[in-house]
């Protein structure tokens, strides 16, 4: 597939990897929205060029390499937690998923799957209820926020000793392929841990997820934190790869949400308003329509 023509997808900043994924003095291929790119690193300097050798805009932000194929109307989103000195950045390692990037983000927003996909870790089958939470589109920053989310979790994080009622907030920033969550950590209940998932949409149905954390955890090693996140993400991966259709349907009646899926409902509505097509299923004829 060639580079997409979908302006709503092109005009965003995307992550091609953590800076550490590109060893110094290397040239590495990358792919974004159907376009083949070349990443060159010389020391702390990065250069990204496209299929015809044109140089693309590059930013180094939040420990990651960012680029765009279009003309973003907004800068890379604000993550004020990055500047808090007691937080530790943890780069959890890129994972490829044979699924639409929009499905990957939607799964990240979902609470209801915890007891069934992350059994006895992020949820337990005896307590599957998704309590009412709030979702809003914040027009001034063009972000979707889900707040007042609560879930009982037997092992909420690498450092957890026992179960806890976890509080969550979710945030999809102006680019619908970038999602973050804020979660009460077992070690500092009055603060929020930050977990981000930067999705690099490669093809419509192939994505690279770059999970990233800014944690307040002085007890767990990086290897322990990474192992925990990768375990969780790989439990999701097999579900994501088996979802059909692979591309996210935005057509009414194609998939039926329930009350617990409110964040998905608002996310999909927002995607429709953006008129995004990359990773979205073409409308199909429904039998009952």
């Amino acid at each position, binding site marked *: 597939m060639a580079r997409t023509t979908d302006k709503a997808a092109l005009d965003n900043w995307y992550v091609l990897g*953590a800076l*550490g*994924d590109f060893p110094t003095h290397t040239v590495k291929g990358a792919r974004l929205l159907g376009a083949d790119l070349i990443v060159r690193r010389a020391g702390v300097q990065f250069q990204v060029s496209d299929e015809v050798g044109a140089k693309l805009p590059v930013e180094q932000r939040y420990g990651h390499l960012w680029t765009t194929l279009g003309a973003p109307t907004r800068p890379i989103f604000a993550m004020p937690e990055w500047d808090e000195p007691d937080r530790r950045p943890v*780069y*959890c*390692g*890129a*994972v*490829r998923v*044979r699924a639409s990037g929009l499905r990957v983000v939607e799964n990240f927003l979902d609470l209801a799957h915890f007891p069934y996909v992350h059994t006895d870790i992020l949820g337990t089958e005896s307590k599957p209820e998704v309590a009412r939470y709030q979702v809003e589109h914040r027009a001034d920053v063009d972000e979707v926020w889900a707040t007042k989310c609560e879930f009982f979790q037997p092992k909420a994080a690498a450092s957890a000793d026992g179960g806890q009622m976890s509080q969550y907030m979710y945030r999809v920033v102006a680019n619908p392929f970038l999602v973050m969550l804020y979660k009460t950590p077992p070690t500092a209940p009055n603060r929020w841990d930050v977990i981000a998932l930067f999705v690099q949409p490669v093809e419509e149905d192939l994505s*690279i997820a770059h999970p990233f954390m800014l944690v307040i955890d002085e007890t767990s*090693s*990086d*290897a*322990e934190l*990474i*192992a925990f996140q*990768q*375990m*969780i993400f*790989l*439990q999701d*991966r*097999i579900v994501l*790869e*088996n979802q059909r259709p692979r591309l996210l349907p935005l057509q009414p009646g194609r998939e039926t949400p329930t009350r617990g899926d409110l964040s998905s409902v608002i996310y999909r509505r927002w995607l429709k308003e953006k008129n995004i097509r990359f990773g979205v299923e073409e409308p199909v004829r429904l039998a009952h329509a």
Partner: protein
Amino acid sequence: MLKLHDYVLSGSCYKVRLLLALLRLDYERVPVDFHPGRQHKSAVYFALNPLGQIPILEDGPLVLRDAQAILAHLANAYDPDKNWLPRDGRFGLIMMWLSFAGGELMALSAARMHDMLGYELDIETARANGRKALRILDDHLADRGIDGGQWIVGDAPTIADIACFPYVALSHDCGLGHEDYPAINLWQRRVRKLPGFVSMPGIPDYF
């Protein structure tokens, strides 16, 4: 205490975790930042295993690499009834299938590393070799089934089953389903029912 240098997403480490669980052995788990940190290729780990691979098992002064060797050691040292590694006519066959698990079946591991972690390798060859290995195992299990056999060797599960199970069960991670391998499908259900069985991410719950 036994100490396992472990990576949660490694099928080879999972072989060891699975047998440790089935033998109900306590052990210390040392998580290795395999991806993205490549800690298994650090000086500390090269000192433990010059091949730069995990799992590594420390049992007192003994340091062992290679999942198959570790399975054999655990069965030899901690299974007094010799169920998991019988020392009779089954021994040679078990060794043969251990070699297969560490050899031909590892094509599935290579394909999985490509699809999951973006390793650069010849994915078509890896998948084709993975399919060939699955075919060999499926034919063997089908033959065994005709004779009433339910396991890779003999009338009971052995470390041959434990060595072969992980990458077979994880083949969905590299886009290979089990539709064409009905004997494997039945066999892996039996493995999953073993008392003390533990799973890992990527192994589907719905078979």
